């Protein structure tokens, strides 16, 4: 398993390089100018100097290598530097957002917590409610519980989050006034009332995304449980005199979780993608919103960096899913 993991990590390098090249090329050929956001009053010579400082006057291949160096060496060193307190990079050129003129990494670091609390929380909540629902629906197939579960999942699955989001805002903010409709990112949780405020403003976005995630994962769980409940080994467990609890929650569940866990792992990169639409609906100032705004503003370094981070996360979580599969299923030997 260990050598397999190492091998996969090594193999991931060329894959990521290829992805980075594609992202770089795609964005280079897209219209956009680093100076677009600079006021017209700035004289052309100054603009040319700014361009040179960003390396935008170099040949494409040099620009690409420069970006790679910034992304893989300077930025990680910078992060390491901030964590340890040493200055490791001096004043080397970092990846700079065209829109805000500040380093892309700093902005991302600022936005990350919002996304992780709201979207990450919704994923955790979604998984936590999906698993028991899937288990019970399968064990009691066609019962009223299963029917309701199927119906709710279908809604969660097929109704887009911008619709459920707006519906919730209408009902709970506009009519009932229970929850704020806009997520306040400046809120600092330093007291119980503020904590309570934070909980209240998280309820709706988390609910919307959790419903969506739970719908998907509970279906997976149910299908996987149903598959396994019909297996011969279940009959063997019953013939041994095991209680239904042991049969279902130990024998069947352990087998059923294998594919579900990999699906859950594969879904994690979406958290960082920030559920773009939901963040827009509730005005959560997270990574999804950051990406959308960067696209509108032609802020290529930001778009490039975010896209590439998502790509890395997808590759990594694919690997994690495969490794988990190998750990959970003794029949699989990678080495």
């Amino acid at each position, binding site marked *: 398993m260990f050598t397999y993991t190492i091998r996969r990590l090594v193999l991931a390098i060329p894959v990521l390089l290829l992805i980075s090249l594609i992202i770089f090329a795609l964005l280079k050929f897209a219209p956009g100018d680093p100076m677009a956001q600079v006021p017209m009053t700035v004289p052309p010579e100054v603009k040319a100097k700014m361009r040179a400082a960003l390396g935008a006057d170099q040949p494409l291949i040099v620009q690409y290598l420069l970006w790679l160096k910034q992304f893989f060496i300077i930025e990680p060193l910078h992060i390491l530097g901030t964590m340890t307190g040493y200055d490791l990079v001096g004043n080397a050129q970092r990846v700079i957002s065209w829109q805000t003129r500040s380093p892309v990494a700093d902005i991302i670091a600022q936005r990350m917590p919002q996304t992780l609390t709201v979207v990450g929380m919704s994923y955790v909540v979604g998984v936590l409610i999906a698993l028991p629902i899937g288990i019970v629906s399968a064990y009691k197939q066609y019962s009223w519980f299963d029917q309701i579960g199927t119906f709710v999942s279908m809604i969660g699955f097929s109704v887009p989050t911008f619709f459920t989001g707006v519906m919730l805002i209408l009902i709970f903010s506009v009519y009932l006034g229970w929850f704020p409709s806009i997520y306040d990112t400046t809120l600092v949780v330093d007291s119980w009332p503020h904590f309570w405020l934070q909980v209240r403003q998280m309820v709706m976005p988390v609910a919307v995304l959790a419903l969506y995630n739970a719908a998907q994962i509970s279906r997976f769980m149910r299908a996987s449980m149903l598959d396994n409940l019909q*297996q*011969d*080994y279940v*009959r*063997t*467990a*019953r*013939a*041994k*005199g*095991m*209680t239904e609890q042991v049969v279902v929650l130990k*024998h069947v569940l*352990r*087998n059923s979780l*294998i594919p579900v866990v990999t699906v859950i792992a594969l879904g994690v990169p979406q958290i960082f993608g920030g559920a773009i639409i939901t963040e827009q609906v509730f005005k959560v100032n997270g990574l999804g919103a950051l990406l959308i705004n960067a696209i509108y503003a032609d802020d290529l370094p930001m778009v490039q960096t975010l896209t590439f981070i998502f790509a890395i996360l997808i590759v990594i979580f694919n690997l994690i899913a495969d490794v988990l599969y190998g750990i*959970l*299923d*003794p*029949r699989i030997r990678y080495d």
Partner: protein
Amino acid sequence: MPDGALPVLDVKGLKVVFKTRGGEVHAVNSVSFDLKPGELLGVVGESGSGKSVTMMSLIGLLPSPPADVREGQVLFDGQDLLTCTPDTLRSIRGARIGFIFQDPMTSLNPVFNVGFQIMEPLRKHMKLSKAKAADRAVELLELVGIPDARRRLDDYPHQFSGGMRQRVMIAIALACDPQVLIADEPTTALDVTIQAQILELVRDLRRKLGMAIVWITHDLGVIAGIADRVMVMYGGQVVEQSPVKDLFRNPQHPYTRALLKTVPGVLGERPEKLNVIEGQPPILMAAPSACAFRDRCAFAMPRCAKENPARVQVGAGHDVACFWDPATNGPRNA
């Protein structure tokens, strides 16, 4: 075998129906039989004759729905297993009645190691500590002929061959020293040499442990070698029941006779080609109101279409459900 011994298992008038979309399937109809301590009862019949359903219904292993055990009594040690509480039934399953299934490739849980799966009933029923259970599991694996038993406890089912997995299944079924072992075609899925080994193993275990065995098979040849008594099933009913020697010497039911002809080397001359029984097994969409075998029977009489024959005694411990008498080649007078 002492003839007068009280049976360990006494099944009376068992009836099992499956509720399906196409209607009710009457899979088992008024099946009665008993099992004496230490006895080996062979159950034969072609595929679909209700052997598995009968045996699984005894200890409540049929999924319900669709199965519905409608009538009957299953007396085990003075208790009716059909009416006792689920907890009582669970304390008997795997402890006092062991079960071996047909397909060893799928009958073990793939994600737990073999040691865990053998120790599970030991810990539950015999309340053994982990260490004691492990010792006993090693003993059991050695008993069923698995070499290097201690080390193999940590292995997973996929690391065993089919024959070895069936040995593990036998070890699990025998873990708590059951009085009754039900083996549902335990060798059907295995190749011939392995079949012979498993058969030899069970014969040996029976000598050592002395439990009563119900051995289901569709192969009369297997039965001849190991059974004390044979029960022939057809269309969800018992059509003939007899001590094994008597059955081979003096088969009464036309179906039994046809089955015997399909066994090469039994009943006189070896046939040129393999005999098969012509026709289809019955479709059991209603409770039987006539003989289920009559469409395939060479000796069918008008009465066979009007009445379902009851089992009648024809010798010591030998009964048959048929209106035809092979001795006279005419209607049976009883």
